[in-house]
């Protein structure tokens, strides 16, 4: 119920449009009722052979309703789709605005689990909230009330009977179908998820499966789940068919009941035979309004589930917030010193600390490398520096002020990051660079691209700066992506540079060339390089060796090699690598 209210709040700004679309929906059904009612009247009255003048109104009425129905239907569809599109725009903005403060602490883990993709699909499905969920009951209530009123003019008890039947059909059948369908629906969802997971395994793990001679057994598993899925689906469809059949029965049985009750009333003189014909057809046509209700009930529970999933994500508290009294940051920023004292961090949901007891002093403009085997906690330090999270204990000082004193926007202006994962956005090469600095002019872009050694690549692209990249666009190689990211960093000109495994996944030749560019990038900035590749280590002022969240060695390249510890082991293992 709470979810429904929250969902309805999203529709509230469009109350006027909802009213208009609903009114048009009611008018459409009313025309249908009017058409059959006046037609029945026309024919029944004509059977009594009056003068043609007495039939004129009915003839005009039949024509009016016949044309009106089509036109109202058209207008109703336009109005409801306009509303749907408005709603979609609002939902996207709403979702984005609510998600933005949560990123990346609350969204990083979702990327892998595809939770985010799912949430975006959920948000998009909510656009149908009016058209599929709200409109049918609103129209049904209005039509029921109006028809009841009309029938009441014949005899009050008939109106009461009609309204009872209308309600049973409109609420009872959808509710019954919902109860029957929920259990099957849940099982269906589970089976579908199992099948999808098994197929994913079968495709992504196909090499492993075939090598182990297990292709046939995976096929068998898929076959079994598929059979279960189609059986479940069939059961669910049969419940839906039951709904349709029940609706058909309810509609015509209601007409029958009205007929049976009304026959003695004709005899008793409450109304004449013409009235009887009109009554039957009006009642029959009015039931059009309850036909979509079983489907609406199904959509309601789907939308509630989608809403619940989305709210569950958005209701998380942001991991970090802006300070109440932020530090002032001048326009021109000199490279800051970085100090770390007693830093400890444990990821939410994890027991082991990812970092513990970290002490560090990096003078302004110096270069620090943090190395160690994977899982040592190197990237965690980068995340804490960018304030994706706040440390569990200890603190980080940037230019002698705690990190949490800076406004997040200022912090991200000071700290530039280049990571192994480069996001490119659908758009042109130019768009993707402008993202870093929207005000940059063509000359600035050229210069940044030039220093990132990206210019020749851009000029070689089919449409140069205007080449479309990203989804459905040109795929760039790993090295090209990194250079684009470097150009972005250059455009932002950060005072503190964090390089998080910048060469992972690149071949040695590309790696060596990229490191050369990176060394230029480090000029005049405080730099922290996080890597498990011991390349260009001589250029670093300080090296910190991390192992399982703790600093095990520190010094420069020469000192560490002499130590004969983990650093030396890592270095020697790397020397044994064939290129």
């Amino acid at each position, binding site marked *: 119920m709470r979810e429904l209210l929250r969902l309805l709040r999203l529709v509230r700004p469009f109350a006027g449009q909802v009213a208009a679309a609903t009114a048009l929906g009611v008018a459409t059904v009313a025309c249908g009722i009017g058409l059959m009612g006046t037609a029945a009247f026309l024919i029944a009255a004509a059977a009594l*052979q009056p003068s043609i003048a007495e039939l004129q109104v009915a003839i005009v009425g039949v024509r009016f309703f016949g044309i009106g129905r089509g036109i109202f239907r058209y207008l109703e569809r336009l109005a409801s789709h306009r509303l749907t599109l408005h709603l979609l725009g609002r939902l996207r903005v709403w979702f984005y605005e609510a998600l933005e403060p949560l990123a990346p602490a609350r969204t990083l883990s979702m990327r892998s689990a595809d939770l985010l993709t799912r949430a975006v699909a959920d948000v998009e499905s909510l656009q149908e909230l009016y058209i599929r969920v709200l409109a049918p009951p609103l129209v049904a209530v209005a039509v029921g009330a109006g028809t009841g009123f009309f029938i009441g003019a014949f005899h009050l008890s008939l109106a009461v009977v009609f309204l009872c039947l209308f309600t049973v059909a409109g609420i009872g059948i959808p509710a019954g179908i919902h109860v029957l369908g929920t259990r099957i629906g849940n099982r269906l969802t589970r089976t579908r998820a199992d099948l999808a997971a098994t197929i994913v395994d079968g495709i992504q793990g196909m090499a492993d499966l075939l090598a182990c001679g297990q292709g046939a057994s995976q096929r068998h598993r898929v076959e079994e789940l598929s059979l279960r899925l189609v059986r479940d689906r069939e059961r669910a469809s049969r419940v839906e068919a039951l709904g349709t059949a029940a609706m058909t029965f309810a509609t015509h049985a209601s007409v029958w009941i009205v007929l049976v009750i009304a026959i003695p009333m004709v005899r008793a003189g409450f109304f004449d035979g013409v009235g009887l014909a009109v009554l039957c057809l009006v009642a029959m046509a009015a039931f059009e309004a309850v036909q979509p209700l079983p489907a609406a009930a199904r959509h309601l529970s789907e939308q509630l589930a989608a809403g619940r999933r989305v709210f569950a994500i958005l209701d998380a508290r942001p991991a970090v917030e802006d300070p109440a009294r932020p530090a002032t940051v001048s326009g021109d920023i000199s490279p800051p010193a970085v100090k770390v004292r007693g830093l400890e961090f444990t990821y939410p949901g994890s027991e082991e600390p990812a970092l513990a007891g970290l002490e560090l002093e990096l003078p302004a403009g110096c270069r620090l490398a943090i190395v160690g085997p994977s899982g040592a906690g190197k990237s965690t330090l980068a995340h804490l520096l960018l304030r994706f999270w706040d440390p569990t204990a200890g603190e980080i000082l940037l230019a002698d002020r705690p990190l949490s004193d800076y406004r997040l926007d200022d912090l991200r202006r000071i700290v530039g990051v280049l990571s192994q994962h480069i996001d490119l956005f659908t758009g042109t090469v130019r768009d993707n660079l402008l993202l870093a600095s929207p005000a940059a002019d063509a000359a600035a872009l050229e210069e940044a691209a030039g220093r990132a050694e990206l210019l020749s690549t851009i000029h070689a692209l089919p449409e140069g700066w205007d080449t479309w990249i990203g989804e459905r666009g040109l795929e760039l190689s790993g090295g090209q992506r990194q250079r684009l990211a470097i150009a972005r960093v250059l455009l932002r000109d950060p005072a503190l540079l964090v390089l998080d495994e910048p060469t992972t996944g690149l071949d040695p030749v590309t790696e060596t060339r990229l490191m050369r560019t990176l060394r230029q990038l480090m000029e005049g900035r405080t730099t922290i390089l996080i890597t498990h590749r011991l390349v260009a280590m001589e250029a670093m002022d300080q090296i910190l060796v991390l192992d399982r969240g703790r600093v095990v060695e520190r010094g420069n390249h020469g000192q560490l090699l002499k130590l004969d510890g983990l650093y030396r082991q890592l270095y020697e293992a790397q*020397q044994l690598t064939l290129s």
Partner: protein
Amino acid sequence: MQLDRRLLALVHTRRVSLFAAVGFGALGGIAVVAQAWLLAHVIARVFLGGATRTQVATPLMLLLGTIAFRALLSWAADAAAVHAAAGVKHDLRDKVFARLLERGPLAAGRERTGELVTTLTEGIEALDAYIARYLPQLALAALIPLTVAVVVLTRDLLSGVVLLLTAPLIPIFMVLIGRLADVRSRRQWLAMSRLSASFLDTIQGLTTLKVLGRSRAQVAAIRRASETFRFASMDVLRIAFLSALVLELVATLSVAVVAVEIALRLLHGRLDFEQAFFVLLLAPEFYLPLRRLGADFHAGLAGTTAAQRLFTLLEAPAPARPAIAIPMPPTPSLELEEVSYAYPGESGRGSAARPALTSVNLLIEPGEKIAIVGPSGAGKSTLARIVLRFVEPDSGRLMADDVPAKAIDPDDWRRAIAWVPQNPHLFADTVAANIRLGRPESDEKEVAAAARHALAEDFIAELSAGYDTSVGERGALLSGGQARRIALARAFLADAPLLILDEPTADLDPRLQAELDVALEDLLTGRSALIIAHRTPTVMAADRVVVLDSGRVVDVGPHDELLERCELYRRLVHSYGGGA
């Protein structure tokens, strides 16, 4: 929408259910006519004959019975139709998945997994609309109006003619306006999916946007894109909905015309009331199946789109299996004879075929350890794929003890091989099941022993449920090093005469590496091995080293000899002398 012959062939196997659905539907149509007649009869007798309720009790009871019968038929028709669809969907899914397996991991790797999974789950489900709704409705849209028209014609010629004259207008307008709207709405669908994709892009790139300090500014862009899309959509919808307008108008106006035309003749006493009322009741029923067909047409369209995709998958060529298979020799020597292979180009992207191996000759004697080295792109992985028979050589031969591989069933062939890939896949199942993949019939003790040999015992013990912890897609995440040890355990368990080992390029913790080297030595004892080597100790331990470059064998020999005579080999071994 044309009727896809391949789809119809599949449907043909389930034709009994489908015919039953049409039969029930047609019977339902007859019930509708009977119901209209009974209702008209009762009202006429009460209205003009002054009958009491008792006097019309019989037709009233018949009417109720007809209504119940009609509802029952509606259920039976739907149930039969979904049963037919269920069978077709299952057959199709099974066939497509089997074909994917036959085509092998390389072909599957070229597809986008997410899209493939959606096609195989929801895509196939979309066939429901086509098989269970559109196909029966196609028959009923012909049968029911025809029945109604015949009945009306016998009662009132003029009304029958009106119905028959207006009926063709519905499909004509449907096609005309449909064509007009189709192109535009398809473009609109594209715009819509682009918009969705770019929104998802923005959301997934939120971290990057945030780091770039651009995340808040993105709201305006989202709003703008949605507005633009809305304006464009409304332009399209204004035309697209015209078809609904025309359909509705034809149907309702025809009913209105019939009503007026009947009324006028009633007025002049040329028709009696019961007949007239009967015809009035039937008129909307005449158009209903046609209008329903219009709705099901659009739903069915989604089904045929999915079907096209499925048939493309189903008809992609797969390597043939031997008609009469020769069993794999127990501890064979393997031989590659003048083997060449080129990766097929992708026509969609305009890339040409890429040669990966050229005239490679190689003999692996039983028990021999061979290391393969070469720069990236030299063809090392392709060589492993050839031996694993994930790809077939374009020319040349692969043989086991002089038996051509083509004569041996691929499953049988692969049972003689244990493969330890660089990035092994972990299945959404327990740790034990993931290890057991190596030999499904093995018991718990054997699984535990294999894990011990592969140095996986310690970290498995630390997992929340030990061997029963589920991993992969929906379970605990294992690190790359841990996944690799699981794969090693698989190999220990498989106990195959030939081992294919893809050494990891990503650096492991050097301390663990030393321990793993010992475990590997243990595994290699008494087996032939083909090792894609990335480390000096590995090549030094091999009996022979094969140096590959650009798909050709440059040299073969033991480490020491190659070091003396092969320039490329020297470069490979010494290149990491200190980095950049």
